[in-house]
């Protein structure tokens, strides 16, 4: 999806602003969002690719305005509603309750005691390598060209690297494919490569001197290069 989340090469965002002595969290709710994301993900409610695509589907102006954890909140709320884990009505009612009682703990509104929690897989994000025995099509040093594609769904081939020539640097093994896994179309694991691009190939005459970019790309993003 060629959305505003695909920021590589975009201009107009100004300087990087660093915060001195930045706290780990700026407010308690940020930690709560992080915990909810992990709780839902590690219990299989969504996978990491669905999570990322959930955020990408934010309205573009909101995406650019929102803080990091606001984006996460938006993404997990969207997914929990879509998956039927929470209902729009109960969520609205619960939000109204906490809007009127901002200092109440999360447990204050419970209608019934929590059931035993379902088992979790704390390794759910890293658990993406599949030993399928697939033979990689490309070897280090092979020239490749990325596909010129503009899918409406989730993809991890950034827009700035479409239809570009690079060289395979290494193969990372066989990984779950985000473009299908984000859409309920299965893991369809395939070899993942680190591909090196010369900045002149990516940015043409505007490239800075003596620069390369390495991008991790799945095999089906790549065609044999010249």
């Amino acid at each position, binding site marked *: 999806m060629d959305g505003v989340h695909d920021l*590589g090469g975009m201009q107009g965002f100004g300087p*990087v602003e660093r915060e001195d002595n930045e*706290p*780990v969290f700026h407010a308690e709710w940020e930690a709560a969002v992080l*915990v909810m994301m992990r709780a839902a993900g590690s219990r299989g409610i969504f996978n990491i690719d669905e999570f990322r695509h959930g955020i990408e589907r934010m309205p573009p102006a909101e995406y650019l305005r929102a803080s990091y954890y606001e984006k996460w909140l938006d993404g997990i709320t969207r997914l929990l509603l879509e998956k039927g884990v929470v209902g729009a009505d*109960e969520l609205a009612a*619960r939000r109204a309750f906490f809007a009127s009682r901002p200092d109440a703990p999360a447990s204050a509104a419970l209608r019934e005691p929590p059931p035993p929690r379902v088992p979790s897989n704390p390794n759910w994000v890293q658990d993406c390598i599949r030993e399928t025995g697939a033979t990689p099509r490309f070897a280090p040093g092979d020239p490749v060209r990325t596909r010129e594609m503009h899918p409406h769904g989730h993809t991890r081939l950034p827009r700035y690297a479409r239809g570009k020539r690079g060289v395979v640097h290494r193969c990372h093994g066989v990984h779950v494919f985000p473009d299908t896994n984000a859409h309920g179309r299965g893991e369809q694991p395939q070899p993942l490569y680190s591909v090196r691009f010369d900045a002149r190939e990516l940015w043409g005459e505007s490239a800075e001197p003596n620069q390369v970019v390495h991008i991790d790309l799945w095999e089906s993003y790549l065609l044999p290069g010249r």
Partner: protein
Amino acid sequence: MGKNHPNVDPYVVSRVRALESLLLEKGVLAPDAVDRVIQRYEADTGPMLGARVVARAWTDPDFRRLLLEDPTAALRRFDLDYAMLRVVENTETVHNMVVCTLCSCYPWPVLGLPPTWYKMPAYRSRAVSEPRALLKEMGLDLPATREVRVWDSSAEMRYMVLPRRPAGTERLGEAELVPLITRDALIGVAEVRPAAAAVP
């Protein structure tokens, strides 16, 4: 943590609290999970593990080789079971830096939670297309002869920079080196400087 952070939006907080409450009720969330996470990340502040790994690599050539060739095995020596890291080495001729243009991927297990600037559009947009100009603004003016090698973390592989050991630190031991090694140097937007006070 800024519990009284002035920019806390009550609408956002009520949305968070509502979702938290529903996930508790449905058995997705543990009652004490939020407190535990806050404690853990505030105790493990900053890129401590990454700095320790780098200090070891600077002082132990065998470990350095292992870290570059088999980072998973190297991290196991620090009791971390993490198979997704690649370590990229700065040299006289190559400077590495790490970004995630599509979201905000970052090697949490070794560097902790990312700083806000790493997650914001300014860094994500410019790191791949004008890294020299960006680094210069951030205080690192690289010679044109040094290749800038940008790692865009588009998959689950994570990248950490092995910075160059600065001159003037030859007499420091591993433990003395650790506090010199900043998070920014491990991301690749700074170099490690010898702290005047730390040099014996």
